[in-house]
């Protein structure tokens, strides 16, 4: 399995003054800052030679740029309806019909091109926030379970089992039902449903590393359990979690679109969100299929980018692939 990330050098054994004690927010990727031939640097070298990784990275970078510079790229605002007057019930202007609306209009009179661009921003925000939420929650649970073991481990893992006993989307829907419709509800719902996987991954990876020689060495040196867990066990166990976070970004983008497709996003009907655009494309599938295909393709391509990147990262961290 790709879970084991053996420490690369003997320098790991002594906690030199240069190794900072990770604080409570130890969720940040710890290793890249380390010098020497760390696993991360090694993985990065291999990543650059992998065409799938490059393709994924390019998609992700383009997506990030579009999301960041949405106000500069999009000709109209996300919720604007510049073409309201051109819409008649039987006809929705498609791509090329009006020079100023590159990809045509939707049923509300919104500019599809602008909405796709603003939709990237919405997806990015939901994807990143909900993944971060799941990551922090899952890592906290996994760290407690893996760090303490015993009954703490038991209680936490049973709780995770309960969360896992409800299918993901259903869990998200139930959460959104309590929180009401809206962006925050969607983010929390997706975040919570991502907690179990992070918790399980970190725990199992920590358990695998617990028996490693460098942990034994650290124990022999008389380091405290906290230091061992936080500065040795955690940094060496976090690899699979980071890989999973990249992959979760892909599913978060898809799930966010699914929830807003189901109508849990809240806000105005014409809000620029890819999932929402698909909801309203449903009725016009026969006369204006591009209204469904364009946002759908955006979701798929973004998810593809994160998936390619995540999988390549997983491969490059796998000791077997060296």
């Amino acid at each position: 399995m790709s879970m084991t990330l053996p420490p690369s050098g003997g320098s790991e054994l002594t906690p030199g003054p240069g190794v900072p004690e990770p604080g409570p927010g130890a969720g940040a990727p710890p290793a890249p800052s380390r010098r020497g031939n760390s696993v991360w640097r090694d993985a990065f070298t291999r990543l650059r030679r992998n065409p799938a990784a490059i393709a994924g990275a390019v998609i992700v970078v383009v997506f990030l740029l579009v999301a960041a510079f949405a106000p500069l790229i999009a000709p109209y605002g996300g919720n604007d309806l510049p073409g309201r007057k051109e819409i008649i019930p039987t006809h929705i202007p498609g791509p090329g019909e009006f020079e100023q609306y590159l990809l045509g209009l939707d049923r509300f009179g919104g500019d599809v091109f602008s909405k796709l661009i603003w939709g990237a921003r919405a997806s990015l925000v939901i994807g990143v926030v909900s993944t971060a939420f799941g990551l922090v929650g899952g890592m906290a649970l996994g760290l407690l379970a893996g760090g303490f073991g015993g009954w703490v481990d038991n209680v936490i893992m049973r709780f995770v089992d309960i969360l896992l006993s409800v299918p993901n989307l259903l869990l998200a829907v139930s959460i959104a039902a309590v929180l009401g419709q809206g962006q925050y509800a969607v983010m929390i719902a997706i975040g919570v449903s991502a907690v179990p996987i992070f918790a399980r991954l970190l725990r199992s990876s920590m358990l695998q590393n617990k028996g490693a020689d460098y942990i034994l060495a650290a124990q022999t040196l008389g380091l405290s359990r906290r230091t061992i867990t936080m500065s040795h066990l955690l940094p060496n166990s976090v690899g699979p979690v980071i890989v999973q976070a990249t992959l979760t970004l892909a599913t978060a983008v898809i799930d966010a679109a699914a929830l807003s497709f189901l109508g849990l996003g809240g806000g105005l009907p014409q809000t620029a969100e890819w999932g929402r655009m698909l909801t309203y494309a449903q009725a016009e599938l026969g006369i204006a299929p591009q209204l469904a295909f364009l946002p759908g393709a955006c979701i798929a391509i973004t998810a593809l980018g994160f998936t390619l990147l995540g999988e390549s990262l997983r491969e490059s961290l796998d000791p077997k692939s060296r």
Partner: protein
Amino acid sequence: MLRVIGKRIALLVPTLLGLSILLFVWVRNLPGGPATALLGDKATPEAVARINEAYGFDRPIIVQYLQYMGKLLSGDFGVSLQTGRTVTEEFATRFPATVELTVVALVFAIGVGIPLGYWAARHVRKWQDHFSVVLSLLGIVIPVFFLAFILKWVFAIQLPWFPTDGRQNPRINATHITDFYVLDGLLTREWDAAWDAFMHLVLPGLALGTIPLAIIVRITRASVLEVVNADYVRTARAKGLTEKLIRNRFILRNAMLPVTTTIGLQLGLMISGAVLTETVFAFSGIGRFLRDAIFTLDYPVLQGFVIFIAIFYALINLLVDISYGLIDPRVRVQ
């Protein structure tokens, strides 16, 4: 084997108990409190007070929980705010539709996925392999509901081969015994009804089956690659056994264990997918009903359906564990 099954069922109890506590807390945190949630639009102060007394929402929390559990155990999940029928009844009439859909999706996913994964593994790093890998990647990144749109547009709107929505053409006056429409048609010998119901299942089934298909392809490929060079396969070949025998008895059988797990896990995901697919195809299964329940804030339905689905999901996982024993005798011994 029986002891293993018993142990697994025993392990289910704490999980479901925990879930019931979560759901209990959940109902109490619904906007406006449980009484308002139960009453919906009809929530006048008098009605709220009446519900609070009838359901005992004014009593101590432990008593409330025990009462709630008592109701659940006796199968009383309340009444749907929208239809006025009991939640159990609603579930029972819609569940067969979703099961039919899931079966079609699963047959498609397994029937195509395992051969494709095997084929990819036997031609590893050739075009067949790349083709399967790309195909499965696409299956994972294309959202189910978007795929449903594409299928509907191509095969129901542009090429009118399949119906666009529903479970059966309402003009067919079919008799329904079991609420499994295809099965009903076969039982009553109304062949046209069975065929029509089946045609309604094809597109949603394909849409729903694509993600499991993609994942089954990957897992099959990976696990066939694990065993294909195993010593016992080489021995079998050295003994001069036919390729067919080696494939069926040695490679596939040993490679199937991870695939079985995957299929079990996918079933849970398919319930999520069913919510989306059924919405696109206006297919009246539990998924679409749940979706409507979100909008109409039909909390008894939401709560009841979540419990039913969790139990169903747990049973599936149990079956998967049992099937390990059937596939791999080593598991039986432990």
